[in-house]
């Protein structure tokens, strides 16, 4: 088993929490893991990505080869498209539909939607609304992870447990909200 994931978003949107959750789950399963992050200048509102690789055998490169990713998980729709050169032909894109507009020439939403539809294997959902409805507006990233969970070759309970571990120090309420967000995302993606 190997699963190569590109995580995408804008600096400050919380893609590293998604990475940390999958990472904890992978460790619990006794899998090999490599996870490359972006620190420094790009974190100031620039595009950020993380290469996350899990496997049952040793992983060599910290970077996913071009055309090799099993999926792109993105918390922002334009950022999902930026990493298509890394996606395998049969790979999936799971992305939030809510744009993060911090540049003057952000593309027209209809064009963006068309480009996402063009890609084929794509799941688009409004993670912000789902998180807001749960009363946890900051849990959009966990909604997206939930939506991607059926593509990740690990039992869903393992991911739930990882969310619990990750948010444990913030208290029971935060843990519950994030697990609810994870479940809601999985349901919204409708791929049990």
């Amino acid at each position, binding site marked *: 088993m190997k699963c190569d994931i590109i995580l995408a978003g*804008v*600096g400050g949107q919380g893609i590293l929490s998604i990475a940390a959750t999958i*990472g*904890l789950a992978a*460790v619990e399963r006794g899998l*090999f*893991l*490599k*996870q*490359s*992050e*972006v*620190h*420094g*200048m*790009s*974190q*100031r*509102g*620039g*595009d950020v990505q993380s*290469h996350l690789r899990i496997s049952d055998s040793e*992983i*060599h*490169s*910290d*970077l*996913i*080869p*071009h*055309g*090799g*990713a099993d999926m792109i998980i993105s918390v922002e729709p*334009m*950022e999902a*498209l*930026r990493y*298509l*050169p*890394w*996606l*395998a*032909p049969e*790979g999936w894109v799971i992305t939030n539909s809510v744009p993060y507009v*911090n*540049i*003057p*020439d*952000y*593309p027209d939403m209809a*064009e*963006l939607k068309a*480009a996402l539809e*063009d*890609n084929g294997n794509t799941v688009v959902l409004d993670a912000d609304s789902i998180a807001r409805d749960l009363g946890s507006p900051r849990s959009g990233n966990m909604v997206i992870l939930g939506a991607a969970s059926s593509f990740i070759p690990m039992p869903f309970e393992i991911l739930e447990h990882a969310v619990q571990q990750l948010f444990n120090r913030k208290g029971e309420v935060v843990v519950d909200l994030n697990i609810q967000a994870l479940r809601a995302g999985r349901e919204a993606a409708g791929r049990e």
Partner: protein
Amino acid sequence: MQKLLLLGDEAIAQAALDAGMSGMYAYPGTPSTEIMEYIQASPRAAAEGVRREWSSNEKTAMEAALGMSYAGKRAMVAMKHVGLNVAADAFINSAVTGVNGGLVVVAADDPSMHSSQNEQDSRFYGRFAMVPVLEPRNQQEAYDMIFDAFDLSEKYKLPVLIRITTRLAHSRAAIERRDARTQNSSSLPSDPRQFVLLPAIARKQYRALTGLYEKLRTDSVLSGYNRFAKSDSRKTGIITCGIAYNYLLENLEQHHDDFPVLSLAAYPVNSDAVAELVESCGRVLVLEEGYPLIEEQLRGLLDRDVKVAGRLDGTVPRDGELNPAIVAAAMGMKKDSGKEVPAVVRQRLPSFCKGCGHADVFSALAEVMKGYGPGRVFSDIGCYTLGALPPFNMVNSCVDMGASVTMAVGAADAGLFPAVAFIGDSTFTHSGMTGLLDAVIKDSPITVIISDNSTTGMTGGQQSQATGRIESICLGLGVNPDHLRMIIPLRKNHEENMAVISEELNHHGLSVIIAMRECIQTASRNKKAAAAKKSQTA
């Protein structure tokens, strides 16, 4: 022992603690910052009294580490690659003095310049100083190498350089720990003149160093890290350095036996293995994450040997970091790439955070500078360099730490008036103070704006040595109190701030304007931490 999931930087930090380090010295710089942050956050480091405060710059860090080594304890110093330029005087000479307690220097290079001004390769510094260099291939090896680095340092009485690059520094993997060692007890050098580099002593020690460097080529620990996997195939032999090996393995998959591979991770290199590979193969491909160091040595000055392929003949791009695709192309392997990036995707450059104080300073400065024309703002290294991008487009230089002040001095000497230097608080205490003294002494007609956000912002909000001290530092250096002005960069003070900037720009002598407002990122973090503390005690 349970495995730990650590960044390459964190693996190095954990290893240093486990290897009995007594003190860590550093100035923040991407991609090296997390080494010190990990040690500062470590409860064990606190319990065992490991010294771990930030230094004013990389040179003071290097010297403090050398001082700790002098007193017999193990010390580590970490910096980004360009930080080694700042520390170079102390670093090069530390090879001539030698060490007492083990001394490990970590340089984190940033090929492709993700957060840097150049992509210099620190392995050259290792050769220049004539010290052992270790270049880990992965996070586990980074952990293990720190133990060997301290041992080698104490065995040969030399500092040891660990060279990593961004992808290893900022990538996480599971680390298996070793049993922890205790710290050294204090001891003075056996020769009281070892650290006294008077010419007569330095000449003797330098000569010994040149001999020792050649001996290092046959050291079994160093040679042990350079692995040769033979193959019956003789067409193309491959030499990799550091993490380039991972990109090779990623591509080899089932073709392991098709290529003899010499994987290097320690320098200076023993030439025996290199000779065996070169002599047995029709062609040698060199894959280096960084400059073509080994490739240049193989080619030699005359470069008549057509057998070598690498960065210098275009087989591998001359600049930039490696990745699996570049290595596949260099090996002539065809790999499926994914789709093109759709045209709808726009560039998203980094920008000031909403509500950033630097942005308010630039707003006021931009409006005042309209009257003077472009090309007059010398800036420095930090978040505020983003003033070079829209909407401000007004920064005209970003060269090295502190260069804003001194370039403005030089430009003013050439007749540019008014000339502005724009520098942050942490960069000011790193390398701006000495330049300001130059400006004070000749009352240079420049306006220095110190944009003080009371933190080291770009690297994630580390403590700034300047906090609460800038005004007194400026006065102490001799800045005229009449032209030392304080402003608070807020929208509501815009008109008032413009007036101050305008007055000082028109002053034909040195002015310093301190614009002080805490970084909004740090402020919100501090607020959260304070709230959490309050709820705990409540």
